[in-house]
């Protein structure tokens, strides 16, 4: 057992992947000597060399485009996008090439590329550094999209994502990089569930709260608060956003009859809508209330001094849970 922050667990997971497979290479801005602005790749260039931990020119399309080329040559590139808001110059390469080449080639070409995106707000940053663009990727067929919420998953899921023969967009809840947990790094991967499974983070009977990434902690806090009011709330850590683990989700909602989805991204057009629509179909007769969503507003991410009013917090989640009981 080692105590690791989520950030250090990411680092350990990357290191393990690089040790296990010489084809794994890391690419991005400042990932080398600096170890990335969040230090997620700290020490890796020193230990694996400049050929495997590549400081790239400042050009995200170039980074993803050359990562695709490296994958075509048999490498397994792991790309770091410095902040959520800077993935868009690479959007074309991701949507038109990374996502589609496997089908275009009728399965002859595999692109095992992982794109790591530190995402979300709550860190007091300037514009473009606090966004949650995950729904823009879940709508793109050919990509897999996941997000980790705790150090153990950070450590395990990044290795599973790298091992996947499909492209994976990997969302890291940057404001949770400093959350700690004890991890058994030895046995963790072997003991872990598959990448695309949703986990019951807290069992409960009265209502289900779905969350992922940064919101899992908030949802668990909300469940604690609800417990004080005598409500037994189940919290699911989605972990996988594309594909969804619909089975686990609807099993829970079929049991509880009430569901709230929380994400930092704007509610409008967010992944919550997709989940709500699916759950409503799957659990129509069991739902006591419509699936409610708590998330960002339909605005650009606001300035740091008011971001706390934008981000879903435990009160807003509790309020939504309460509202499901008002139907």
């Amino acid at each position, binding site marked *: 057992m080692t105590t690791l922050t989520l950030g250090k667990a990411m680092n350990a997971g990357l290191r393990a992947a690089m040790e296990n497979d010489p084809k794994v290479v890391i690419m991005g801005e400042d990932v080398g000597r600096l170890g990335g602005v969040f230090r997620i790749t700290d020490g890796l260039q020193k230990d694996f060399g400049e050929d495997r931990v590549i400081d790239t020119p400042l050009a995200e399309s170039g980074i*993803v485009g050359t990562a695709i080329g*490296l994958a*075509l040559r048999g490498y397994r590139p792991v790309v770091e996008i410095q902040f959520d808001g800077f993935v868009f110059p690479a959007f*074309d390469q991701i949507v038109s*090439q990374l996502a589609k080449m496997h089908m275009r080639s*009728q*399965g002859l070409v595999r692109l095992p590329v992982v794109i790591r995106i530190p995402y979300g707000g709550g860190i007091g940053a300037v514009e473009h550094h606090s966004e949650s663009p995950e729904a823009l990727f879940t709508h793109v067929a050919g990509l897999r999209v996941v997000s980790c919420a705790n150090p153990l998953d950070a450590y395990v899921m990044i290795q599973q994502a790298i091992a996947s023969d499909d492209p994976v967009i990997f969302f890291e809840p940057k404001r949770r990089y400093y959350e700690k947990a004890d991890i058994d790094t030895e046995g963790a991967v072997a003991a872990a569930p598959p990448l695309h499974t949703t986990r019951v983070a807290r069992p409960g009977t009265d209502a289900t709260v779905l969350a992922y990434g940064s919101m899992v902690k908030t949802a668990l806090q909300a469940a604690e608060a609800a417990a004080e009011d005598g409500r037994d709330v189940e919290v699911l850590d989605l972990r996988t956003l594309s*594909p969804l683990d619909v089975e686990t989700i609807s099993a829970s909602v079929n049991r509880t009859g009430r569901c709230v989805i929380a994400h930092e991204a704007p509610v409008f057009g967010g992944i919550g809508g997709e989940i709500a629509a699916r759950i409503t179909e799957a659990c129509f007769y069991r739902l006591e209330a419509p699936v409610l969503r708590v998330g960002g507003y339909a605005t650009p991410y606001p300035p740091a001094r008011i971001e706390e009013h934008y981000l879903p917090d435990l009160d807003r989640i509790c309020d939504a849970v309460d509202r499901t009981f008002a139907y």
Partner: protein
Amino acid sequence: MTVDTSNGAVPAGSSPRSGTDPAASAPQLVQLLTPEGERVEHPDYPLEVSAEEVRAIYRDLVLVRRIDTEAIALQRQGELALWASLLGQEAAQIGSGRALEPRDMAFPTYREHGVAWVRGVDPVTLMRMWRGVNMGGWDPAEHNFHLYTIVIGNQTLHAVGYAMGVQRDGNVGDADGEAVIAYFGDGASSQGDVSEAFNFAAVYNAPVVFFCQNNQWAISEPTERQTRTPLYHRAAGFGFPGVRVDGNDVFACMAVTRAALRAAREGQGPMLIEAFTYRMGAHTTNDDPTRYRLAADVETWKLRDPIERVKAYLARNQLADQAFFTEVDDEAGELAARIRREVRAMPEPAPETIFEHVYAEPHALIEAERAEFAAYHASFDAEEAGR
């Protein structure tokens, strides 16, 4: 069904503009074979080419033109959904394609049927995507010829990344090294991706040759809408050499590409080749070039035909007789007939292929939708049967 976007005439009173005047930049052009079929020397690009090789080149040129003609005919007959003609660009493609070693990797656009031919991709295989049967589907690793890329410029970065992989595999540094070639057009040169590819290649000294076929048109836009300077100048700004070659001269294209590939495989890094040529046909079978360019320009370029000059060279130097030319023509006719036959006989894709190869590994949603799709169609079939 195909939308016909070519049904308009030239608006009254308009005067289509012509492309860049090639004569203006003639001095910098590397040429080894004149339009009249005369062999000329260039100090930097010596070329030894046997009679047999010239005949093989001639054969390639004729065959790929025939493939092209046949494809256009098939499109007109509704057998293909679309075709992007290589007419006029045969020399650029056969010359550069033949400069490649089998171990070299090529990244084409959507118009490199000539390169595909040299790399051994069967024209019928190639036409599947133009028929709408699939979206590519030859094995890039088998031919060292990547899939066609339609989004302009994207593939140049893939080529550079692949070349970075070659470096990491330790396969650069001497004559046995590997090199990579990225094809793109004059229009593509404007895309940010292409500049980024230039820059990544320069910074990492990647073994990649950028081969720009400047056919002077990006659909309806002439080169001066894309660039203020000859495109080969672009390279110097990123720190590597650029050269303009007569793109209708198969010898020059071959010699210059070979030299650039050699430099790349030896570790000297990237080079940009601008093959100065002309798109003789429409952009694609959907396009109507009479709306935007003068027939006279096309006529001028007919005099610079890439095949005629090789034929003249062969005849002038008595390296081939009429029997040879007839034989090649016959072979072309047979090839066309086979293509026609096989394209028409191409099996229709099964509807369920929609769900195939979206992912390499199992995917819950795809499986669910595949099952729904099957159930839905089964219910329909049952209904029909019940009637």
